[in-house]
């Protein structure tokens, strides 16, 4: 009987290990693919892949987070404003879903802020005031939730860089924030290979832009 029990445990353990490692393995593989993605279709395919994982793993926030993140990257390449807006709306919807699974998560709030500020770009005159306020609040909240997360600083710095000096933006204002972002990036260690770990290169580029 002992043998049987042992075998049963073995099977159960095997199944568990398999499913768990399958999630991790697939996620890490897809994150790697996403990091290497270049064109709009790569991002769409990556978003689709994460959507599939999210479909099966309904309790995990990470597949949703990456689906949303990949959608935002794909929206960057979209020229048609109507489509771009629809993609960003979808990205926000997915990020909000992730937020429900993992409330008060600095990374998700950062993503929500990023999407909000990208939505401004579609019609700055109309959306600037309202969404600008919203994006700013979300960034501040993301920092409050985790002051060590470099990504909200990066968003904040980039936002300031592209805001005219007269409205409280400009290179001089952006520089210290972006320097802080880089500092935080250097210190940042993701808890595991699946955790968000993007933005350092962008941040460096923005910092170089600042120093020009």
């Amino acid at each position, binding site marked *: *009987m002992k*043998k*049987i029990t042992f*075998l*049963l445990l*073995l*099977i159960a353990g*095997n*199944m568990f290990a*398999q499913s768990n490692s*399958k999630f991790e393995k*697939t996620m890490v593989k897809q994150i790697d693919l996403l990091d290497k993605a270049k064109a709009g*279709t790569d991002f*769409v*395919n990556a978003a*689709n*892949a994460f*959507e*599939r*994982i999210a*479909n*099966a793993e309904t309790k995990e926030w990470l597949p949703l987070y990456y689906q949303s993140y990949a959608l935002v990257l794909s929206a960057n390449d979209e020229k048609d*404003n*109507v*489509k771009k*807006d*629809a*993609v960003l709306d*979808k990205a926000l919807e997915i990020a909000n879903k992730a937020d429900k699974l993992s409330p008060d998560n600095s990374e998700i709030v950062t993503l929500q802020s990023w999407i909000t500020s990208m939505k*401004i770009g579609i*019609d*700055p*005159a*109309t*959306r*600037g*005031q*309202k*969404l*600008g*306020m*919203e994006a*700013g*609040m979300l960034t501040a909240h993301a920092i409050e939730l985790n002051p060590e997360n470099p990504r909200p600083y990066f968003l904040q710095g980039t936002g300031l860089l592209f*805001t*005219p000096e*007269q*409205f*409280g*933006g400009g290179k001089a204002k952006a520089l210290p924030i972006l320097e802080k972002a880089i500092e935080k990036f250097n210190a940042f260690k993701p808890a595991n290979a699946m955790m968000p770990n993007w933005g350092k290169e962008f941040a460096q580029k923005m910092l170089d832009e600042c120093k020009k």
Partner: protein
Amino acid sequence: MYLSKHVISWLFFLIIIQSATAQTKISGTVTDQKNNPVAGANIVIRDSYDGASSDASGKFQFTSDETGDVIIVCSLIGFSPSDKKIKLQGDAIEINFKLKETSNELNTVTITAGAFEASDEKKMVILRPLDIVTTAGSQGDIYGALQTLPGTQPTQDQEGLFVRGGDAAEAKTLIDGIEVANPYFSSVPDVPQRSRFSPFMFKGTNFSTGGYSAQYGQAMSSVLALESEDLPPRSIGNIGIMSVGGGGGYMHRWKKTSAGVFANYFNLAPYFAIIKQNRDWDSPPQTFSSSAIFRHKTSETGIIKAFINYQYSDLSLNFENLEDVTGKSKNHFGLNNYNIFSTLSYKEVLNKWTVQAAGSYSKDINRIYARPQHLLFSNQLWQGRAVVSRSISELSSIRGGAEVKYNDFSNLYNNFRVDSTEMFTAVFLEGDAYITRKLVARAGIRVENSYLLRASNLAPRISVAYKLGKFDQLNVAYGDYYQTPDKNYLIFTNLDHFEKATHYILNYQYVNEKRTFRVEAYYKKYNHLVQTTNMASNVYATAFATGDDGKGFAQGIDFFWRDKQTFKYVDYWVSYSFLDTKRKYLYYPFEVQPTFASKHVVSVVMKRWFPKLRSSIGFTYVYAAGRPYYNPNKTNENNFLSDRTNDYNNLSLTWSYLTSIGRHFTVISAAVNNVLGIESAYSYRYSTDGLRRSAVGATSKRSFFIGVFISFGEDRTE
């Protein structure tokens, strides 16, 4: 032991099975309804990791370890997902998907006849809320901006919207579905008044010049439906300092609730001391306003809004006494006004249902001193309104609602006092039926009853729209529109009929993100218009109804062109309205062109943004053909109202400078009205014997405005 041995080998077998892969190859193509390949679609086996994306030719291929009956789903942003049941047994499966586009602003027709919508939420709208405050000549007044749209008349001697041959009483203003009984400051003879509400309060403005839905009643010409803002993104304060006064307010934001108070005070005395006025002011206008706003989100989709506004204003001025041959004596006119407007509304969306309910109380008191007369008009209005709508398919919907208004009013003419009450009820039912995405029909019916008039009416409304291409569409509309005659006529005279207008409209419009072209032809027939005693010679005299067999018509064509694309940083629009109208009403014994109607009206609005100067500079040019005016020497059928004023020309300029004071976003705004200083008479006032007259012109040759507006609570703008 045999048994356990058997079990062990069976378990081993299980482990092997589990590790072994029984792969099925799945492939296929994704297309749209027109068989064009669709790239980027996500094909997935439900509850598994297995799936793929379609490539540029719509093809996809993947393998799955799953076995048995599974559901395979194909989805893409902008399309309705499609799912199919398949059986996986290891044999290769080919499966194709045909996706259907979900409805969006480009592929779905909407009802547009008569409508000008200003919204931030949709992309293909004619106006943005911001356009209203940045239009030169509007002076931040909603109605001023609407007067640059086709179908409206730029009347300069009185306030209100005169739409397509209709007078100001035929236009109604609604806030969240509730009628605003006194949308303007109390009327003063020959001095046009502003709107009582700031345009910043509203997120949506829906201005209709005809053919509107059965939801709206008691308006024969036009409906302006304003939708108030939701919760602000964060706590926010503002201060405004202007050449005519100042004010400010603060709104606090909690998680699901916001509440705020606002107050301002205007006094025109200092301004009038500097800029010469064409009116003999005894005491220049002063106004005190205060309001409180409360909003609470009851759920993700539910919101309660409460709003209360209190205003006090007074003024007095003198008019030339035309009866006095020496020209030395004056007629005095003084006015005190108290106004309260309050609403409480609730809206919730639950799956297919939308429920809106609103209640309102308003009170308006006008005390008029026109020596030796003393008049007091007091008016209390309670309103209730509920609308329920239900969607019956992706696009089609049906809605019904009811309205109750209880109006309690009292008029005091020196020592003679009249009290009366009016009870008005209405119900409506309306459906939007999408036959295809390109073809929609809206049919509605409205039934109203007036206690004071002792009459009921039944008004059918129909509108059919067809989408011709991606950006353009055709719309036809027909409807009956009833209105209870002004209650002051009903107190002394027994009238039997609602005043009635029938609209026929043909609309074509092309709207993309940057350009709009719209042309609308209409015919309007009027019946049962109230007729009154003769034209009053005194500014304060009251006319009495003599009957309700007035009638008339209005026909015309409206053009609108807006372009934000051709010139960088430039946004301009051009409106032209042709109006042919005649009516027998009030003191007109014959069917004639009314005094408020211009045959031709052109307005050009232009705004240019100068990024380096952080400034927006705009102008508005308005031309209106001369209007008829009353001459007591011409009262027969051939010459009644046959005189015309000179044509009206006006150029206004506005300049807005964006900056920050400390960390606070600041706008400095300056405006000049009638830059060219063209003086025109809007009408003439005659003595009873018709021997002497005086021209009614602008209140001043040019008018100037300067203001500084500071916002707190936001450190930057994009």
